[in-house]
């Protein structure tokens, strides 16, 4: 199952844990849910760790369109 969204994945993980804790499911289904849960846990962990911190500012280029450029907070007037 593909999850593009962290929030979505977390929500589904919560749901799965709830189901497993209720303990009313047959064995095979419990195992399947558990596997899905572990996959989601891995996905969430990756999402939380991946990222980078870029600080940029939109400046008007020579053609008049806006471009994201690195931002230096110590610089003076940008635009």
């Amino acid at each position, binding site marked *: 199952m593909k999850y593009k969204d962290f929030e979505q994945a977390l929500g589904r993980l919560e749901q799965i844990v709830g189901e497993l804790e209720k303990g009313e499911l047959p064995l095979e289904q419990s195992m399947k849910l558990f596997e899905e849960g572990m996959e989601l846990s891995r996905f969430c*962990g990756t999402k939380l760790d991946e990222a980078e911190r870029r600080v940029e500012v939109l*400046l008007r280029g020579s053609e008049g369109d806006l471009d994201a450029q690195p931002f230096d907070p110590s610089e003076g007037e940008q635009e």
Partner: protein
Amino acid sequence: MSQREFGFLKQRLVHSVTDAVRGVRERVESAYRDVWIRGEIVDLRRPRSGHVYFALKDDSARLRAVCFRLQARYLKIRPADGLEVLARGSMTVYAPQGDVQFVVQHMEPLGHGAQQLAFEELKNRLAKEGLFDPAAKQPLPMLPRRIGVITSPTGAAVRDILNVLERRNDLVSILIYPAKVQGTGAAETLIRGIRVFGRRGDVDVIVISRGGGSSEDLSAFNDERLARAIFASRIPVISAVGHETDFTICDFVSDFRAPTPSAAAETVAAARAELHQRVDQLTRRAVQACHLVLHRKRSRLARLAASRSFIDAETRLRYFLQRLDELQGRLAKCPEAFGRPRREKIADLTRRLREAPKRHLADLRLTVAGRSRELQAFSPLAVLERGYSIVSTGDGTIVRSAQQVAPGGRFHVRVRRGDFEGERLRNEGQQTTRSKRRSGKQEP
């Protein structure tokens, strides 16, 4: 001096300078006790005393003014050169210099009254239209990857936001839309910022903020078109514009309001550590829940296997089979009156009756075998099957750390087939152990 000149002098009332000035002062003070004067501030000075000295002027006249320290502290605006104001106070004459002076109690920027009214009117109108409706506000993203910031690029807001993110070590990108926060055309730049981010779609949340100074003119953030642009924005907007007690229209219409740009950054930057914890906790719970499920199934299976009905079923089956044989025998001895078809039917039924329980029992056996296999995988014995050994100390404790067995100490090793005792070498650094084999005991 002639007689005539002397007489003239005697009839004139001659004042001292002090008296003259005092007289003028009294008249000025009574005539201009509490007045409003409108003019432009010039020559502003703020000496250490805390008193503010300046002048009010218009096209053809100039008036010295002062605002003493006590009143100056409570002024709602920060007086500055060039500012057109409405000032309220009393006139007097400053004797030592002989100057007329205006002692100011209160000041407001020109048009303030009208401005207030317009603000109230707009606020009520937009509220009626539902632009401030809490139900219309969008939730903030849990894990934003990029924050769009609309503010002055040279203002303190940007620095504050960056500092907060630095401190929290948050891995989130920022994209700044440089805008004018006050003056002509400011509202237009703010609106363009909202629209540009909306078109680009590459930020998860927008923070719109003033530059940072406390005496800024925030009227751009009360612009009606800006309010509508924010309301229409599909990207959530956080407003960090208003001062502690002053709210602007922008603050009302945004999806979230923060008192300062730093507070906005704190809100937006995902509490990454907290989310990590939450995921870890959920994972733990899932594992625990699964163990519990397995445990329960295992117990239930054990119970069933040991139950009377299971055992009884086998016994009963045998009994039925025996009965069937018996009946079949009697049937064979029966008179031909039953006729062939019936007999065949009875034989057929008998056969099916024999097969059914057998099949059922076979199914049960398969299921049990299947479950047992599954359970086996979790059994510690399966570990041994794979070639690992279980090491324990004299009292049966499983050894997980080398420190549990002192040099010279004894340990017990259980392998797939058999077990034996061992003694740890006294020499340091030795990895292998010498062991004495006991009589080979077969393990189940």
